[in-house]
């Protein structure tokens, strides 16, 4: 087979050198009982030719017919435009076929790219340091929460119910086993985190407070400054989950004196890919650098004084510090981080701002049409939003969405998926990949669906 280069003769020669008679003999120390069971049960269907395999999996892929629908799905993963070069870079052999850069002298391509990724994330968020990536936002937020616990020495985390419900679920999983209290704040009538609830809940025992902006319901939090004051008054850390593209126009976390920024980096040039691989962003203040989980690339010099890059502060990491490491993370999402760096470099300050403006303006155009043409009810009509908002449906949202699916539209995410009580609400996202024609078609289709009822 293709991936085993040896000829029969070479195999014989090698066995001779080793001093055994057969390949089987190389496995003789494995107890017979184990080998026998493997022999009997290790069965997979016969291997097809490359041609048949390509065809077989292509046929399976075509069952993902939703890919061809006009989509208004968001909720933590967004359909953004990915420039061609971003895709090409992820096929550069030295990037995708290399391991973690344990040998920096032959890994400067990966290392400098990640250093630039870290720097670009700092530029975008206003923070001082970023790590070389976490898996994705959900586990990233859990890491940030644990980091706040390590830094403050306290064991109570407060989270807004504006946080993506999947992230909250991950947070619960991670914190529970550490006996860290998790308190959840309600939203106010505008869909913003209820600041009076925060005031009631927070105390000097609080290690960190986690907010999301724009929050899961698309709402832009307007009292971040006030909440920051509350948080820091209690010597807790302010953790904010962000949507990187929104920072093309929204005030950066640093201006709210956020301590740890986390976020899903998928919007920065990473394909939707049915949920992964994505990219966990984590950025913070320099004072917390020794509590950062995962890899960090730093600048240094070589023997001749030339600039170079290495993994640094490795004593925080599992392969050195083992049980006392800041995290167990080892394999991260380096290639996604490189993609994000290429994306940010290609779009640049003008491009990311423009993408953000296009998302914003088309989402508001849609909302305007829904409001003025169809009289749709909005759940948070008076809130500010970036590119996502919640509407009320006249019937069960899943039934309603099915009707749109008949028109080849993925009309939004039914919030009942996460909140039983929100069974007539859908979350609608608009990006620059939704053309005006698509948006108009959506409005037209919604109108038809509403009329029918």
């Amino acid at each position, binding site marked *: 087979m293709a991936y085993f*280069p040896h000829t029969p003769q070479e195999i014989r020669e090698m066995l001779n050198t080793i001093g055994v008679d057969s390949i089987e003999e190389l496995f003789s120390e494995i107890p017979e009982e184990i080998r026998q069971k493997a022999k009997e049960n290790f069965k997979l269907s016969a291997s097809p030719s490359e041609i048949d395999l390509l065809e077989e999996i292509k046929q399976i892929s075509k069952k993902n017919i939703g890919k061809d629908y006009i989509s208004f799905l968001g909720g933590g993963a967004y359909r953004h435009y990915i420039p061609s070069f971003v895709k090409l870079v992820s096929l550069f052999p030295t990037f995708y076929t290399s391991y973690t850069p344990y040998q920096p002298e032959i890994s400067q391509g990966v290392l400098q790219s990640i250093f630039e990724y870290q720097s670009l994330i700092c530029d975008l968020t206003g923070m001082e340091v970023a790590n070389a990536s976490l898996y994705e936002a959900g586990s990233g937020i859990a890491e940030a929460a644990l980091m706040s616990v390590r830094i403050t020495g306290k064991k109570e985390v407060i989270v807004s119910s504006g946080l993506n419900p999947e992230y909250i679920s991950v947070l619960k999983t991670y914190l529970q086993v550490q006996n860290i209290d998790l308190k959840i704040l309600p939203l106010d009538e505008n869909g913003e985190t209820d600041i009076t609830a925060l005031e009631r809940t927070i105390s000097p025992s609080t290690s960190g407070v986690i907010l999301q902006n724009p929050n899961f319901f698309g709402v832009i939090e307007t009292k971040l400054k006030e909440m920051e004051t509350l948080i820091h008054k209690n010597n807790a850390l302010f953790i904010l989950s962000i949507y990187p593209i929104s920072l093309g126009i929204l005030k950066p976390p640093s201006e709210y004196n956020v301590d740890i920024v986390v976020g899903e980096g998928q919007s920065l040039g990473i394909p939707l890919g049915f949920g992964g691989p994505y990219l966990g962003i984590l950025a913070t203040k320099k004072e917390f650098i020794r509590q950062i989980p995962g890899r960090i690339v730093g600048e240094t010099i070589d023997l001749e004084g030339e600039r170079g890059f290495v993994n640094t*502060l490795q004593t925080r990491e599992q392969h050195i510090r083992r049980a006392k*490491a800041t995290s167990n993370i080892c394999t991260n999402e380096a*290639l996604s981080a490189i993609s994000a760096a290429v994306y940010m470099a290609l779009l*640049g300050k003008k491009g990311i701002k423009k993408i953000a403006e296009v998302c914003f303006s088309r989402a508001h155009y849609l909302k305007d049409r829904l409001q003025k043409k169809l009289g749709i009810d909005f759940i948070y009509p008076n809130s500010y939003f970036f590119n996502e908002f919640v509407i009320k449906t006249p019937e069960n949202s899943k039934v309603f969405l099915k009707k749109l699916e008949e028109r080849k539209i993925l009309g939004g995410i039914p919030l009942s998926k996460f909140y039983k009580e929100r069974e007539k609400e859908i979350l609608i996202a608009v990006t620059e990949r939704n053309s005006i024609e698509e948006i108009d078609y959506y409005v037209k289709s919604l109108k038809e669906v509403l009329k029918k009822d």
Partner: protein
Amino acid sequence: KKIPLIKELSNDDRPNIHLPEPLEEFSPEKLLPKELLREDLPLPQLSEIEVVRHFTNLSSLGYGVDLGFYPLGSCTMKYNPKINEEIANNEYFTDLHPHTPEDLSQGALEIIYKLGEALSKITGMDKFTFQPSAGAHGELTALLMIKAYLKDKGEDRNIVLVPDSAHGTNPASASMAGFETIEIPSDERGLINPNILAKYLNKNVAVLMLTNPNTLGLFERDILKIAKMVHEEGALLYYDGANLNGIMGYARPGDMGFDAVHINLHKTFSTPHGGGGPGAGPVGVKDFLKDYLPIPTVEFNGEKYYLNYDIPKTIGRVRTFYGNFLVMVKAYAYIRLLGDEGLKRTTEMAVLNANYLKEKLKEYFNLPYPSICKHEFVLSGKRLKEKGVKVFDIAKRLLDYGIHPPTIYFPLIVEEALMIEPTETETKYTLEEFVDIIKTILKEIDENPEIVKNAPHNTPVKRLNEAYAAKMLKVNWR
């Protein structure tokens, strides 16, 4: 040729790629209060050609499996078949939103489901979750499940046992799962000895985490006895799947008595490692742990595939969505292409290559554990210390010869360790070339040790000062 930082090339007035224009009427300036808007976005601005050249030139400073030998122990840096990239690079996978309704994403669900079935056959486990994004994430996930299971049984065991040769992720994951770790010393064979283990087993032990073959490349031959002892004590046995490449077709973790396993798809199943990720660390468990799997799992009701959120005892989620799906596609393609015969052959050739290389190299180093190895083996370079040379220097000198060095200084129980994993995809010629280079370097050490101690010399940068980096902490271009 030095490559500047993007920032150093930037000019705010550089043109931008062709993007759509926002709608004037609905601009953020008009619709949002000024205090929510940022004043400046201090990102660099470059033209497309500059960005393309920058990253293209950066890529020329690197190394990868596609360029040459990469015997990095414990990392299974085998060749990544190109067909997998083509298969995964399909818009029906890459452009599929994770919130797409189940009826409209049956293909993706089918891949996940079928990959689970295949991994179950390969490992002898009953059910898999694909949420874990990497091996360490899988370890954590499994430990959380075990913890929940024990708690359900009313047990409050807080100890995780690991061998002293274990991967660093094992104790780190144990900590994250709220356990304490205790290390068991390996015996003179480099193995877990049931007699020694016995001293560590007690009612506080929740789980014994093992890699088998272990990080010395040796098969834990007492595994059945170990499993029995662990289970009799009421503890569970966990399989760190990093070394699965050494036993496929010959031993299945499930048959050895393991209760939970994780698998590194980016190692055994040949999805590329991407300079540090993404990988994937699916976890497989025996039936009695099924009820603790993270939500959602992918199920098949005979007609369609669906996401099952209804797992009452679930530990919850360990990440958003369903895992590193595109990595799964590649692993699935790889497994389909090889079939059981191919996977077994994979292991056979990996073990053949490791033993051959061990045989060829053993006279030049100390070989602390001389028995037949599986997919990798560990040498000690301690005898070189008297010449003032460390294995670190040898590793750096290998770079000059265009080869990626083995893992060094791991496992911790071997002094001046060189951990070598050639993988099954390397030719005999490559192995022999490696031996020749090692011999050349050893000769250099005798004749001109400075050339080794100051290596590398032919790389884009010379030996880098890691201590200086940690001191400066310049981790961003500002």
